[in-house]
């Protein structure tokens, strides 16, 4: 068969418009490069965002509430989530787990112990334990216990220590001291009033509220509550990626708000995604045109050798043989282009990985599986289109 193909080369000239064909091959190379680079950039970016090497904590917690607008002021109900809204949040793909922040339905007054004549009205909230960043064995409450464990927001202590105490000539207090302070907590409501001991067990960076265990909250809301349920106004979600543009869009669309600082990566990410998509899109367009040129080139070759092909078939050459011959003239070039492109992408990736590692950003120095998948797909596509063209024109 080799000898036959060797002779065919003299009969069916594939050399016509060779320069145009090579230009199309270069175009194919650039198209592949753009597509592969965009895929690889996307892979790298994801690695930087989610890679275990680049992050201590993969998930993040967000407390979400409705934005309070002027129109809503004075109507507490409007800031509450309806059941449908809660279900809707729960079923979003970026929500890994979901909990409601339960507010207290009773009055709370906290008193400093001993001679510190200090008392303040306050409130409690409760969240499921799994959302807490404070782990303490005292964080539990059983019915009948007169001691309530409390978690304070870290910001609260900071406000006192660095804002209030200095200006009022009061002593600054360490976390340990606060934990040791016995607080008297008076809870009243539903015609009852009781005294409890408040015991601060930790400080939360995650949730800005005064937290008590859910078990206490459930019991106390029944015992002292007015029975009027205010509805959920704040929910807490665990999300693998707070910079997920879908999350940001969801919050915006629904008029919800959260700690904006945690969403700041979202914009960067959207810009990168847009650029990557645009580059990939141009790659696809270029690929389309390269395919078009190849098809036209094959058509040209076949049309140019129409009489010869006719005679070859008359002499007994099988259309199958001729198709195989024609594909053999073109396909190796595509494979070479594919390999060169792959080498280039590998080189780029290696250089990029080296450059990033200097900034302590670790990415794989090898192209990702997506790149290999994509190049295989593109080559298969090119082969398929060529095969179709050859089949279409060498079948008479």
């Amino acid at each position, binding site marked *: 068969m080799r000898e036959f193909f060797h002779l065919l080369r003299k*009969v069916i000239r594939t050399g016509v418009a060779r320069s145009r064909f090579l230009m199309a091959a270069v175009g194919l190379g650039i198209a592949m490069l753009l597509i592969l680079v965009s895929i690889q950039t996307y892979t790298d970016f994801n690695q930087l965002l989610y890679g275990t090497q680049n992050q201590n904590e993969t998930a993040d917690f967000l407390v979400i509430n409705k934005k309070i607008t002027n129109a809503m002021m004075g109507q507490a109900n409007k800031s509450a989530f309806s059941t449908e809204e809660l279900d809707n949040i729960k079923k979003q793909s970026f929500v890994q787990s979901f909990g409601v922040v339960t507010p207290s339905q009773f009055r709370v007054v906290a008193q400093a112990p001993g001679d510190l004549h200090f008392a303040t009205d306050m409130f409690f909230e409760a969240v499921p334990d799994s959302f807490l960043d404070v782990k303490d064995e005292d964080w539990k409450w059983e019915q009948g216990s007169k001691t309530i464990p409390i978690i304070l927001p870290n910001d609260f202590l900071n406000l006192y220590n660095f804002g209030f105490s200095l200006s009022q000539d009061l002593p600054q207090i360490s976390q340990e001291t606060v934990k040791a302070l016995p607080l008297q907590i008076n809870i009243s409501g539903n015609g009852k009033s009781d005294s409890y001991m408040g015991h601060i067990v930790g400080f939360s960076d995650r949730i800005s509220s005064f937290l008590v265990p859910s078990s206490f909250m459930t019991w106390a809301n029944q015992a002292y509550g007015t029975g009027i349920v205010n509805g959920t106004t704040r929910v807490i979600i665990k999300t693998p990626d707070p910079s997920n543009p879908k999350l940001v869009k969801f919050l915006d669309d629904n008029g919800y708000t959260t700690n904006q600082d945690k969403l700041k990566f979202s914009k960067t990410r959207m810009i990168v995604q847009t650029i990557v998509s645009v580059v990939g899109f141009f790659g696809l367009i270029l690929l389309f045109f390269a395919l078009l040129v190849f098809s036209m080139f094959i058509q040209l070759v076949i049309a140019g050798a129409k009489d010869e092909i006719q005679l070859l078939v008359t*002499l007994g050459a099988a259309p*199958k043989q001729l198709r195989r011959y024609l594909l053999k003239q073109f396909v190796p070039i595509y494979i070479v282009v594919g390999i060169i492109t792959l080498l280039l992408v590998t080189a780029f990736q290696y250089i990029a990985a080296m450059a990033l590692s200097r900034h302590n950003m670790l990415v794989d120095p090898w192209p990702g599986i997506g790149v290999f998948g994509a190049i295989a797909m593109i080559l298969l596509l090119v082969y398929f289109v060529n095969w179709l063209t050859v089949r279409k024109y060498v079948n008479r």
Partner: protein
Amino acid sequence: MEIQLSQLMPIPLQDKLLQRNSDIWNKEVTFQQGTFVKIKAPSGSGKTTLIHYLYNIRYDYTGQIRIDRKPWPSFLKDEISAIRQQSLSIIFQDLRLFDQLTAKENVELKRVMIPEPFCTSEKVEEMAHRLKVAHVLKQSGKTLSYGERQRIAIIRALSQPFKWLLMDEPFSHLDEENTKLAARLIAEECKSRNAGFILTDLDHDQHFSYDVNYNL
């Protein structure tokens, strides 16, 4: 391989041919494998047309041509190629060589078209010697004389396996001596393959010991 013609009639020549008597057109004819068939045909009686019908490169006829009881149109493209590579060879009246190939390459193209070539390259050289065209084997097809081309076309047809050889005025450009040489070679090759041939020509001739004679 048996070739059967059944009520075969070329559509373009229909009116003309119906007025004359023919042994082939519009008749039932069977060519048995291994027979040497001569079809004598005056100009314009559809001689080349018949050869093209038999080789299945023209289809404008009524009636049927059956190859081993199977009509030509029922063969697939790849089956037809296989028949042309293994069972049916042809020498065209207009020779049909590739100008861009040398004489030798023209034969080689046909020889190596088959995955397992039937004869060796040396055999081709030998046949060229016998037909006195060995010296032109390296020349481009373009520069050959008609006589040389005709002999190359004969060698090309003989370089493949076949059960039937179709010949359309195969010696039209050859002198008597060269015709004799070519005829002897063709007869030998047919015998060695246990193959038959169908030869069309204008006149009577004694080139072969024909088994059957027809008038077209």
